[in-house]
């Protein structure tokens, strides 16, 4: 169906662009103290960039495994909402198909699928699968390269990898700061996390910031939702 070629091209270019920063993830994960196998397990099994960066960020900061799991999981809550947004054109699915769809339900596959015309169910499905599987392959292949590269260099701070991790979180945050309220939540969360850093074990200040965000979302009157 040549009609869907444009959708496929879009999916492939998003896959390659997203996969490219697997290089940063692979190198940072090894710098955080995980080995290549654990790094690849995060990419293949957890497969959600923000949660993966969060997991290794908490570990790198000296946080416990439990804090890393909690932060990663909270950050992945949005993926649950994506499944619902995809429901009108993805359901019904056979069990194995549903499990595969769930594994590749991430920011990029959802965004490219929803960017297709609402009435074009075929295009939306093609966009979801091509982007989801495309990112999965590119992300993990390039993560492996990053992890091997990260293993080959010495002190990660000599290479600025700590700054690279901060820049990675800023890059993930940036497109979500469109609304005033999102900016306020981001600022408040950052301040709370920094204020609590000298007082609490590593990892917990980040979870405290999540509590601030939950309170803000609970109390805010109906208005635009950050994606």
């Amino acid at each position, binding site marked *: 169906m040549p009609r869907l070629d444009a959708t496929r091209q879009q999916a492939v270019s998003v896959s390659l662009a997203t996969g490219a920063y697997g290089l940063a993830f692979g190198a940072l994960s090894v710098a955080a103290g995980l080995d290549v196998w654990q790094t690849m397990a995060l990419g293949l*099994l957890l497969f959600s960039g923000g949660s993966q960066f969060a997991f290794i960020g908490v570990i790198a*900061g000296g946080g416990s495994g439990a804090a890393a799991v909690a932060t990663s999981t909270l950050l992945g809550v949005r993926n649950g*909402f994506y499944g619902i947004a995809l429901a009108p054109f993805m359901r019904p699915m056979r069990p194995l198909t549903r499990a595969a769809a769930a594994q590749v339900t991430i920011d990029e596959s959802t965004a490219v699928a929803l960017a297709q015309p609402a009435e074009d169910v075929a295009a939306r499905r093609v966009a979801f699968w091509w982007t989801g599987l495309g990112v999965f392959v590119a992300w993990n292949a390039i993560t492996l390269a990053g992890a091997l590269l990260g293993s080959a260099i010495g002190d990660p701070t000599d290479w600025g990898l700590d*700054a690279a991790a901060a*820049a990675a979180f800023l890059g993930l945050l*940036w497109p979500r700061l469109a609304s005033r309220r999102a900016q306020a939540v981001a600022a408040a969360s*950052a301040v709370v996390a920094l204020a609590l850093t000298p007082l609490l074990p590593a990892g917990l200040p980040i979870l405290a910031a*999540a509590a601030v965000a939950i309170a803000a979302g609970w109390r805010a009157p109906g208005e635009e939702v950050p994606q």
Partner: protein
Amino acid sequence: MTPYAWTWVAVVAAAALAFLTKYAGHVVPEAWLENPRVHRVSGFVTVGLLAALFATQAFGSGSAIVLDARVAAVAVAAVLLWRRAPFIVVVIAAAAVAAGLRLLGWG
């Protein structure tokens, strides 16, 4: 268990919870999570966590808050993001700025 084994436990637990979260979205009744408050909280938690992770990664050093080469690096990253540079360019530029400053003996 060794710390290495505990890291594996955490990796597998995080992966299992990530999958269950994604899977849940594909099986719950569509009407369930249309509640705007639930939707809003989800969006804000993403923003709040990413902001907190950014702040502690940029300014934290153990249990101390420090200003070092990372400050200049994230400032450059912010300018590049504002100029709509690709993600990978932003990350590499930040690493280069911090590495360069440290080579010069600052931070």
